[in-house]
């Protein structure tokens, strides 16, 4: 069953059409990748899914329910968690408090929320830093904090927006493993990513967009060999098959 359906999603910012009639389905339990050059509309699609931006037209259907236009916090309560591309740590709160605030989505008391928060911090390898202020974390820690916060809301679908950007090779392996662990928990993952090593190795299916429009969808190898994708990412020369 498709856990998420995005149908004919269109988003305009005044005269600029950032997302143009994009449609895709995400099946429960899969890792679904969204790729495209910078500015192609990937993050805008995410923002439309949880109504951070209101959609211009089209529908977002989650577990069979049309959630287009639902308030962002209600979308979260329904079971969609998200991280932001430019991380948004709650800087002057501790790491533990960051995730506790998030855990209140599902927990009633402070004790429950904190215990849930600790579990998520442990899952994301941040437990030893729980009392540090969020602003003192380096970028790798901040990315994991974003994920821990989203996980604390016990989502069924998690939207990961470039969670591997800015990481060094060893941190990258850690990020890949974390995403795999998330899937093992039974959470469906919709991931936006540039780093080919990450998205090609872990995605079950990929949807490629450029200038807000779909250019390809399929398995990683199908998409990688698609001339439109090659042209968008690597330039015309590679698409024609020229070698350098």
């Amino acid at each position, binding site marked *: 069953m498709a856990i998420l359906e995005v149908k004919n999603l269109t988003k305009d910012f005044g005269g600029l059409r950032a997302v143009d009639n994009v449609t895709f389905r995400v099946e429960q339990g899969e890792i679904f990748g969204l790729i495209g050059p910078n500015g192609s509309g990937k993050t805008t699609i995410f923002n439309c899914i*949880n109504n*951070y931006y209101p959609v211009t037209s089209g529908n977002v259907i989650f577990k069979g329910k049309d959630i287009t236009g639902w*308030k*962002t*916090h209600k979308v*979260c*309560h329904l079971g969609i*968690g*998200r991280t*932001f591309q430019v991380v*948004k*740590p*709650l*800087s*002057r*709160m501790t790491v533990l*408090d960051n995730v*506790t*605030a*998030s855990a*209140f*989505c599902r927990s009633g008391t*402070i004790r429950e*929320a904190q215990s849930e928060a600790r579990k998520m911090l442990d899952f994301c390898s941040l437990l030893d830093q729980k009392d540090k202020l969020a602003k003192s974390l380096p970028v790798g820690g901040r990315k994991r904090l974003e994920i821990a*916060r*989203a996980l*604390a*809301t016990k989502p069924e679908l998690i939207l990961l927006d470039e969670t591997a950007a800015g990481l060094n090779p060893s941190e990258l392996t850690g990020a890949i493993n974390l995403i795999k662990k998330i899937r093992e928990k039974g959470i469906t993952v919709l991931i936006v990513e540039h780093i080919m090593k990450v998205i090609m190795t872990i995605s079950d299916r990929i949807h490629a967009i450029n200038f807000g429009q779909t250019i390809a969808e399929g398995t990683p190898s199908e998409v990688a060999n698609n001339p439109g994708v090659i042209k968008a990412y690597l330039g015309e020369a590679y698409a024609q098959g020229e070698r350098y």
Partner: protein
Amino acid sequence: MKKNILYALAGIIFLGFPLVVRSDYYQHLLILALLWVIIGSAWNLLAGYTGQVSFGHAMFFGIGAYTAGILAAKFQVSAWWGMLFGGFLAMLIGLFVGWVCFRLRGPYFALATLAGGEIFRLIATNWESLTEGMVGILIIQSFRSKLPYYYIVLALAFLCVYVIHVVMKSKWGYYFVSIREDQDAAESMGINTALYKNISLLISSFFTGMAGAFYMNYMAFIDPHVVFSLHYISIMAILVGIVGGVATITGPAVGAFIMVGLQETFRSAFFGLAPRWTSQAHALVFGLLVIFVILFLSNGIVGDWPKIKRNILRIGLSR
């Protein structure tokens, strides 16, 4: 442990103060300071903890004051009922103000609340049939001695600080600070930011309104120029919060005593010891103090207390 002893000591001092210090003048100063503990703490909840910096808290103060005043002057009801109704009316107005202003953020929210305060001042000035306009409202004081007033405002101040303390330790506290730190992240974490901003505003406006009603009862005279004043009320609340320490529980309380003390020191020209022109200097000194605090002690005196201790030690050691 040390903190509890400090609080107990403070409690004893405050409870016993008017019995020991019999002077009307000093009792008045303490009452004013306690009034600012309430207004400053209430402002701090909305601005320091929830990040919605209001420049219009005079709105709520004035509404509380006029509720009490109008009840007494127009309806022949004791102005003390104003303490109850003033708080609730201020909350109601707060909801309306929130509905208008919370769609704005940061400096725009501040400007909108500033406008709100001024709008209410103008309404009170011009709606003479209700408020007596610039003539103001005069009532007869219930008590000759300042003692009852002192204990009432002390109780109110304690209640206000205690409620804010309890709220900040609860789930609401986490939510308020999350909204302050990053409203969009908070919304994506499942926090209904519109609801919680309004809850913070309700609590803040309630206590400010009650303070206003108390003021009517205590001073026995109000007019729009004073109780809806941008300068005397709204800005003073901000100064109290900033100097004492935004986003701390005891900060506004400390700030209240400092600011009232400073204000009185200058108004009285250092209690008569300095030349007369210094009585006009309090605005200048406030300005300089705020600049100093923002540059060096941005968490206020309470928030940056460790830093102050370190530097005092340093100055002492360098001899």
